[in-house]
């Protein structure tokens, strides 16, 4: 046992007595929110060691997990990468489905607003292989009541006409084909003139005299004179006007999105359709991209009309 020098005995005794009384006080004093003071002191004294222990344990565990226990990480990474790829594909499919749903909703809306007009929804399943012609192939044919020279439209405007019909498919000549076209008229001046394809994305309006006033942006609709399209189906909007001899050279931007057709409507009769006026204005705006595959629209079939 360590001997305490006599001159320090009283000091040691003082320290001991004071400490004993401090502990006695701590046992009795109760802090409102922390309990008895002795408990506060005990926790205060112990918590640094507990904190240090927890910190050390976390560090050791972290080192173990991040440096030693990595056998399965590579496999998990590979599995996650595969899952990520498949999820990307799924997202792309869902986006495509969403775009398709929007498109079909538009078609259905158009169809339901013209219930009295017999028309048939069709899906574009192919396009012309070369650049010399502008045609598309649809998944409706003779069996569905499709006949030659039936008008094909979208809710945006005129598309073209049926030129070949097989049992289950039909070929549509677009307005933009060099042999394509439609009887048309300027909506404001009511000047009638055929619109023909140029083999390019734009249409050309022929036989408008230099004296006739035509404005850029003026809308052009079908006139019904070609015996194929009913009247007042949007054809396009005037994009450019050049004076010529003896007729103006007028270029039109097609109302329908002819370069990205996916779903179309085949008119089974030449009954007139009403297009909203603002739709014509929208059709002259640049079109949104859409790469989704087309699906069939549940449009009720009607008996094929007689050929005009």
């Amino acid at each position: 046992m360590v001997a305490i020098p006599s001159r320090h005995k009283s000091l040691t005794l003082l320290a001991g007595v004071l400490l004993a009384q401090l502990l006695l006080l701590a046992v009795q004093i109760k802090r409102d929110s922390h309990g008895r003071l002795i408990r506060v002191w005990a926790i205060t004294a112990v918590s640094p060691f507990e904190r240090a222990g927890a910190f050390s344990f976390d560090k050791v565990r972290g080192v173990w997990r991040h440096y030693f226990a990595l056998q399965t990480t590579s496999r998990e990474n590979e599995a996650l990468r595969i899952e990520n790829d498949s999820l990307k594909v799924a997202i792309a499919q869902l986006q495509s489905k969403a775009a398709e749903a929007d498109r079909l909703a538009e078609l259905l809306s158009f169809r339901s607003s013209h219930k009295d007009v017999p028309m048939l929804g069709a899906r574009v399943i192919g396009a012309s292989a070369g650049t010399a012609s502008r045609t598309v192939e649809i998944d409706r044919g003779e069996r569905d009541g499709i006949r030659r020279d039936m008008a094909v439209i979208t809710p945006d405007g005129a598309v073209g006409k049926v030129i070949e019909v097989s049992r289950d498919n039909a070929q549509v000549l677009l307005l933009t084909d060099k042999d394509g076209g439609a009887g048309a008229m300027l909506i404001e001046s009511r000047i009638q003139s055929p619109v023909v394809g140029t083999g390019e994305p734009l249409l050309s309006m022929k036989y408008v005299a230099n004296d006739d006033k035509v404005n850029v942006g003026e809308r052009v609709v079908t006139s019904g004179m070609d015996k194929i399209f009913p009247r007042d189906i949007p054809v396009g909007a005037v994009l450019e006007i050049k004076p010529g001899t003896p007729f103006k050279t007028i270029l039109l931007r097609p109302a329908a999105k002819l370069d990205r057709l996916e779903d179309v409507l085949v008119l089974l009769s030449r009954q007139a359709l009403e297009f909203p006026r603002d739709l014509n204005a929208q059709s002259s705006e640049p079109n949104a991209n859409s790469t989704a595959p087309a699906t069939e629209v549940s449009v009720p079939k009607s008996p094929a009309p007689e050929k005009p």
Partner: protein
Amino acid sequence: MNDTYELRSGDTHIEVHRFFPGAVAGVAIVTLILQASFPVYIPKLDIVDLPLLITVYFGLSRRNPSTGLLLGMVIGLAQDALSGPTVPLGFYGIAKTVIGYLASSIGARLDTEHPAARFSLTAGFFVLHQAILNLILRLLMAQPEPWFNVHLAIAAGVNAVLGTFLYIALDRLRRSS
């Protein structure tokens, strides 16, 4: 414990006093009873701390730090016990333990028989005693009190005056050499 003897510290000769048997215990008990009683009848006398005066007196007289701190502890704890449930045991005990130790230590080095020295020391010990109590209140009990005010100064003076006369009376309990 019944004789007076001299404590030699260098060239200084300081008397260590002895008291009649039971004098210390008897005085302490009477003082505690008085301390617990007279504020009931004379409330203004609550500024007087008789147990402190007794602790200081016996510390200065006995001049043994161990005895002084133990006596201070006992008197202080007894005062705590008589002070009701709001005063925790050890509150006065700690303060009077320190005072008993310091009084004994100072008494062993200085001659504290002169009334002026007794007056000064008593006033100083009273202030120190209150400072220790205030420290306990602040640190342990979260009850901050002002460190100094006029009331404390008056109380220190009153206790010092009373102590000076009380010590003369208590000197009669000393055994003659």
